[in-house]
């Protein structure tokens, strides 16, 4: 039961992050909130595995964290290619 309560709190914080991703005045706010959403989602998957007695899900959480980093760097690379320009 505690795990489900924790999942609720994580869901609430994901909603806060989505607010920033949608509203964010600069594109960097959006990238930042997406990387935080990825981290929270990975933790949520790990907790979800324990809540449903399937702890093998940790593998996916691991891969999420690595791919989340990759996506962040990929979107940032776009800015390096475009140079000094506000999109």
């Amino acid at each position: 039961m505690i795990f489900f309560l924790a999942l609720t709190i994580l869901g609430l914080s994901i909603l806060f992050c989505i607010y920033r991703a949608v509203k964010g005045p600069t594109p960097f706010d959006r990238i930042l909130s997406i990387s935080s959403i990825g981290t929270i989602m990975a933790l949520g998957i790990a907790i979800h595995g324990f809540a449903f007695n399937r702890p093998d899900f940790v593998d996916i959480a691991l891969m999420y964290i690595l791919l989340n980093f990759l996506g962040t760097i990929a979107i940032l690379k776009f800015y390096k290619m475009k140079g000094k320009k506000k999109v």
Partner: protein
Amino acid sequence: MGYLIHYSTIFFLFLGCFFILSGSVGLIKLPDVFSRIHAAGLIDTLGTGFIILSLIIHSGFSLLSLKLLLIPLFILFTSPISGHAISLFAHESGYKPKAKLKR
């Protein structure tokens, strides 16, 4: 012993959840991009650390707990790089922080 494991799991789990919640509140509340990076860093380090710690205590020592330990290890390497990259590119594309340079 069983009670100790149970209650410490609950304690660390909700400590981690509290840090994640305060990090996401910081993402909304703080004024500019450079300050919001701190909030995201709070989610990445303390939130992840405490939640993984509580899951390790819950599962006991096995191969699974080693696998869980890999998550904060990867975070230790990836989180500062992405934080630095975001702040560097934001600085380069001309967004100035609200703070002034202190000598």
